[in-house]
């Protein structure tokens, strides 16, 4: 029973999100909510708005209208059809709730691997150096990178860099972790090591939202799949249903194209 109630707890919710770049309506009234321990994959063709959705959720883009909540913290509401962002103190609190892994890793090149992982906990969360370092080493071990602690990002392969980026995000102990096409910038032979780590996190019931093009991976790792196209959610549900028995014509077509 306890596990059940945990799962139903909403960690992240965005409602009726609208976002346009000039004339181009990228997000048209989109609503997504994620429960604790859930892994949600967002799939869809390029330009469908899935990356923009993630960037809006993580405040890298501002929305035009809608509501964003991280559990009990409301970050954005809408009055008279216009989005109103809360005070920067509230946004900061919300910011602590989530982590983001970028397509291009965006590691800090002048920091060692260890410092990349432990600096934010020390500088932002004011953790002690010792505690942050111990935690960082534990995360690097989990990523299979403890021997790279003293290396610099430029000396690592793309797959290794992305694993450091995941460790860096996890070090802040987020309630929810967003991935923005985490393997798109990697050579095919390096994607496996990153996906393995994400699967490991899924097994540990880490709440995650993954924008990805890796369909078999999404099917295997997710509790729920969201298919987006043209700025709207076309279809969402259990991965077996969406991949195995898609209801919408556009979903069928997308998956067909993908398999070819």
């Amino acid at each position: 029973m306890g596990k059940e109630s945990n799962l139903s707890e909403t960690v992240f919710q965005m409602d009726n999100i609208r976002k346009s770049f000039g004339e181009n309506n990228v997000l048209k009234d989109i609503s997504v909510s994620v429960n604790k321990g859930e892994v949600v994959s967002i799939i869809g063709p390029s330009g469908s708005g899935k990356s923009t959705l993630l960037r809006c959720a993580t405040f890298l883009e501002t929305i035009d209208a809608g509501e964003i909540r991280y559990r009990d913290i409301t970050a954005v509401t809408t009055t008279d059809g216009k989005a109103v962002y809360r005070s920067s103190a509230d946004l900061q609190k919300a910011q602590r709730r989530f982590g983001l892994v970028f397509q291009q890793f965006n590691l800090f090149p002048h920091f060692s691997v260890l410092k990349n992982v432990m600096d934010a906990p020390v500088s932002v969360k004011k953790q002690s150096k010792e505690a942050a370092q111990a935690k960082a080493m534990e995360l690097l071990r989990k990523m299979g990178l403890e021997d790279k602690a003293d290396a610099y990002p430029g000396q690592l392969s793309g797959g290794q860099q992305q694993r450091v980026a995941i460790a860096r995000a996890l070090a802040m102990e987020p309630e929810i972790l967003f991935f923005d096409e985490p393997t798109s910038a990697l050579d095919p032979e390096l994607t496996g090591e990153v996906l393995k780590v994400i699967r490991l996190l899924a097994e540990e019931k880490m709440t995650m939202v993954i924008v990805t093009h890796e369909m078999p991976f999404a099917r295997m790792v997710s509790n729920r799949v969201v298919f987006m196209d043209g700025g709207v959610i076309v279809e969402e549900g259990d991965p077996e249903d969406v991949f195995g028995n898609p209801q919408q014509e556009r979903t069928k077509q997308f998956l067909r194209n993908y398999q070819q």
Partner: protein
Amino acid sequence: MSFSTMLSTMIPGMFRTCAIFFLTLLFALPLGLVVMLLRKSRFPVISGITKVFIAIMRGTPLMLQLLVWYFSPYYLFRLSISGYRFTAILLGFSLNYAAYFAEIYRAGIEAIPVGQYEAAQVLGYSKFQTFFKIILPQVIKTILPAITNEVITLVKDTSLAFSLAYSEVFSIAKQISSSQTSFTPFLIAGVFYFVANYLVAYAMERLEQAFKYYD
């Protein structure tokens, strides 16, 4: 005048040249940061004024600027400029070089990928931390070669202080040259500038090496 007298007459000038050099760097390097921030200001009035300032500083001869800084207190406000010579020189050099440094900083900052800011924002770094911890160290590494060029130019530009008759090494060389009808003082000054620039280049190379710990 013997060679050694010539040299000993020029040595105080070398110290004055060094004083202009080091004090200009001391003021212009941080001032350039301020100018760059004003240049990138969100307020169009501030960034506009700063743009004009930079254009004037880079678009007019430094010698002219030195004259303006030295003589304008009198011509504009009827203030006595007695004893103000060195201050005017430092003012002229610092503002001129701050403008150049500001543009170098700006180019360096604009070369930093936006992803660095985004990563810092998502991790919760404050604007201040982002700039000084994440961005600035990377900027310094990229702009060091450009800074080296400016610093070497500065060593040679110090001779422009002669227009305000400040007895740095070049002014003294010129004076000895006319009293002794000899070019040797210019050779000594030349060696001095060369050695000074050699040391600058050496120091900057070491600094660049120090930043090579990452790619």
